[in-house]
């Protein structure tokens, strides 16, 4: 019915691996997309070497935003935070296998990355600049 809803998206939406909360956690952040109310919280556990050992997300939203969070967390476990900070908008879209997302759905897809980065940088709020195309 639609190329946006590829199997990988539907699968991660319906059966996410990383859904849940971590308590205690080393990093936790949550935010929502004010345009549509999608909401995501991400919790991380990080070891002394600065490597992400565990990750979980919670919240609610559309298939794109939720699958994006699951795929993103899958990609960061066992990675150093310094490397996670470098994940770009394009990296995430590649993970999702999505091209040509319209401006509205792009916000859904990128919410998890914004939340993740705001949490890692210890910012009080998310900022679109965190996921703007760099370089």
């Amino acid at each position: 019915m639609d190329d946006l809803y590829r199997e990988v998206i539907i699968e991660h939406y319906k059966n996410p691996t990383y859904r849940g909360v971590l308590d205690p956690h080393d990093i936790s952040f949550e935010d929502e997309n004010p345009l549509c109310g999608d909401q995501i919280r991400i919790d991380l556990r990080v070891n002394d070497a600065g490597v992400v050992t565990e990750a979980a997300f919670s919240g609610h939203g559309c298939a794109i935003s939720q699958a994006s969070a699951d795929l993103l967390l899958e990609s960061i476990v066992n990675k150093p935070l310094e490397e996670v900070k470098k994940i770009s908008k394009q990296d995430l879209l590649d993970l999702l296998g999505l091209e040509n997302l319209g401006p509205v759905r792009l916000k859904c897809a990128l919410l998890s990355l914004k939340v993740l980065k705001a949490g890692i940088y210890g910012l009080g709020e998310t900022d679109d600049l965190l996921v703007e195309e760099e370089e």
Partner: protein
Amino acid sequence: MMSQTLNVDQIRKDFPILSRRLHGNKALVYLDSTATAQKPVTVIRAMEDYYNQTNANIHRGVHTLAEEATAAYEGARERIAKFIGARHAREVIFTRNTTESINLVAYSWARKNLVSGDVVILTEMEHHSNLVPWQILADERGIRLEFIPVTEEGELDLLTYQNLLELRPKLVAFSQMSNVLGTINPAREIIEMAHRAGAVTLIDGAQSVPHLPVDVQQLGADFLAFSAHKMCGPTGIGVLYGRRDLLEAMPPFLGGGDMIKRVTLRSFSPNELPHKFEAGTPAIAEVIGFGAAVDYLIQMGMNNIAAHEHAITRYALDRLSEISGLKLIGPSAEKKGGVCAFTMEGIHPHDIAQLLDREGIAVRAGHHCAMPLHQRYGLPATTRASFYLYNTFDEVDLLAEALERAKELFG
């Protein structure tokens, strides 16, 4: 199936956009008129003719173009005043939209008449445009906000309203038709009750004026706010209707050209109504387009439009409720206008809207600028299909079939 009240096939020919095809030659099925309505060719042409033939600034010029532009602008005001049953054209103030109209009342009338501790009654089903201006005022002035609750069925709880009126509110501001539930509220009764308690009333008519016959005298309305773009007119132009004595006693809202009678370096005296509230060069072409939109609606007949939407909504509610896992919110067909908001088990509203879009069907997903109402129902978002005079029963079938397919995909 044909509507008995309107020749919809003929009407559709008046709207050029409705013949658009998208996503591989699929006919556009436009079910988002609650967000903004499509425009008939008469409205588009009125604005084009104005720019091609008449364009000039109004009210001051003496040359031919300026006189013609002024006559067209003020002529539209008179027709719009008549359309809503106002006693005088000067009771019709042009604003940008419903939101600005409500803000005008909040900034001008309320700041003059309300003091700390005064009560303003709103409802739980308000659009953000009839919540936030009052929240700003509450923060600034210590105004107390109270809310008429919404029942599970999506109607206002008028018994609680009766009790709230014992607080002797200064203002009751409410939507005549909900943009999510579709509920048509008993405006006349709400206003009568408010007046008995000594309150002034403001109707948010953003949804009601485009879809129902609305007569301010018959309703006893004090203020009525609405937008052109939801009633086949252009964006960027709206109206605040205000009872003349209320408007006369209000201080100006925005200051500048056209709203003054005399200006010295340190003072001004305001112009008379309606110009007192129309500072600066207004949206002249848009007002003229608005006039053409009202002419079009009058020609079709507001009673006919309401009857057609009623029939199509009844049909849509029947069709949608056959889909398992689909849950509609809002009252039954007799009590609502052409708005169907729903959720589907296991599919987020955004995904529904996206899948429908690929079939050429335009609906809206989200909280529809009514977050508190969604909180009331414990829903983060809904999908909303809405209807206007140009929608057909066949389009409802297309919607229902596409929803079945979306369900299968997410099955």
